[in-house]
C-alpha cells in the first residue's frame, strides 16, 4: 500500500487542482448583469461625450481609464468598430479613473478640460495613442499640458480648467453613474444597455455584440 502512496498523493493533488481551476474559471464573482436601455443607473456627466449620430441603432457606452492597459488595448478595437459600422454606431465615453492608477485622475481631468473647449475626443485619442509618453514622463502634468498644446488648445484656459470646478463635477457625476451601475473594472462596455461580459473584449466579440444589437433592431 505504501508503495502506491506517492502516486495516490499526486493523483489527489491533480484532481484538487483541476477542480479548483474550474471553480475559479466559472464566473461566480461576476456582478449580476443589468440589461435594458441606457436609462438605468444615475445619468452621469451632462452632456456626455458622444461620437457618432445620437440616433444610431447601436449605442455603445464605455467606462474607461486612460492609464489602464486593457483600456488602451480596447482603444484600437473600438476605433476599428467605429470605422466598420460608421453611422450605425454611436460611442459614449464615461470617466472611470481607477484609484489604483496614480495618474489616471489627472489624465481624466486633462481630457475633460479639453472637452470644455469641444476637443474631448482629440484629447481622448491622443492620450491613448501616446499613453506611454505621458505616463513615463517625469512630470505627468507637464506631459499632459504638452498633449493639449499639440492639439492647439487655448492653453491658459486649459490649465485653469484642469483644476476647475466644472471638471471636478463632471468626473464626480460619471463616478456616481459608475457606482449606480455597480461597476468594478475598466473598460466596462455596454451595448444598447447590455453589459459585455466576455473578456478580454476582442475585435471578434465586439463585432459579434454589435451585430447582435443590429439584428435586434430588425
Amino acid at each position, binding site marked *: 500500500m505504501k508503495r502506491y502512496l506517492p502516486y495516490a498523493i499526486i493523483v489527489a493533488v491533480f484532481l484538487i487542482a483541476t477542480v479548483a*481551476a474550474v471553480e475559479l474559471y466559472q464566473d461566480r464573482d461576476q456582478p449580476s448583469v443589468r440589461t435594458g436601455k441606457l436609462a438605468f443607473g444615475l445619468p452621469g456627466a451632462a452632456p456626455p461625450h458622444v461620437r457618432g449620430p445620437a440616433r444610431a441603432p447601436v449605442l455603445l457606452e464605455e467606462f474607461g481609464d486612460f492609464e489602464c492597459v486593457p483600456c488602451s488595448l480596447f482603444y484600437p478595437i473600438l476605433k476599428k468598430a467605429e470605422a466598420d459600422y460608421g453611422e450605425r454606431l454611436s460611442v459614449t465615453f464615461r470617466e472611470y479613473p481607477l484609484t489604483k492608477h496614480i495618474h489616471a485622475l489627472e489624465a481624466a481631468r486633462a481630457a475633460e478640460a479639453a472637452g470644455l473647449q469641444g476637443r474631448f475626443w482629440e484629447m481622448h485619442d491622443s492620450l491613448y495613442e501616446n499613453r506611454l509618453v505621458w505616463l513615463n514622463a517625469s512630470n505627468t502634468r507637464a506631459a499632459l499640458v504638452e498633449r493639449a498644446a499639440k492639439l492647439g488648445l487655448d492653453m491658459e484656459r486649459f490649465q485653469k480648467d484642469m483644476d476647475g470646478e466644472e471638471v471636478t463635477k463632471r468626473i464626480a457625476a460619471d463616478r456616481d453613474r459608475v457606482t449606480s451601475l455597480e461597476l468594478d473594472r475598466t473598460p466596462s462596455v455596454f451595448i444598447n444597455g447590455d453589459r459585455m461580459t466576455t473578456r478580454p473584449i476582442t475585435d471578434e466579440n465586439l463585432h459579434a455584440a454589435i451585430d447582435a444589437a443590429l439584428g435586434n433592431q430588425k
Partner: protein
Amino acid sequence: MKICMRPSTLLWEIKNEIVKEPDPPAAGPNGKSPVTRSRRLESSLYILAALIALLGLCDSIYLTVQHLKGRDVDCLASSGCETVLTSAYAAVGKVPLGAFGVAAYFSAFSLATLAGFGRQWARPLLLCLVGGMLGVTCWLLYLQAFVLHAFCDFCLLSAALTTTLSAIVLAIVLMGTRATRRLPRRA
C-alpha cells in the same frame, strides 16, 4: 579481466578491497545511524520542496485562469500587475505563461513527492526541472526589471518560490555529494 593480471596485482586488489570496504554505519546515541538520519533529512527536504511547489501551483493556476478570463489581477504591493500580465511576454501564442508554470510546478511537486518517498530516479529529473525553472525565472525577472519596468506581485511570488525550491534541491545535492566524499575511496 583479473585472470589476465599478474597474481601479485590481483592479490593486492583483493586485499585492498577487503581493507577499504566501508564499515557499516555506527548507530548514534539515539540508536539511529548517520545514514538513516541523513536519508530522513533528505526525505523531509523533498517533502518541503513538494509543499513549496504546491504553493507555486496555486499561484500559477490563479494567474492562468485570470488571464484566460481576461480579468484584472490586483496587485497588493506593487502597481505593475496590469502592465506585466497584459504585455506581449505574458503569453506564448495563445497559451498564457501561467499555464507553463502550472505544468512546471505540478511536475516539480510530483517529482519531489516521489523523491521524498525514496524513488531515486526522480531526483536527477527534479534537479533538471528546477534548474530550467530557475533559468526561466531569471529571464522573467530581467524582463520585468529592464524591459517592462514594472513588477507583478504574483510573478515575484513565483520567483521567490522557484528560488527557494532551487535552494532546497541544491542543498540536497550538496548533502549527497558530501556524504559520498566521506566514504573511503577504492584504489
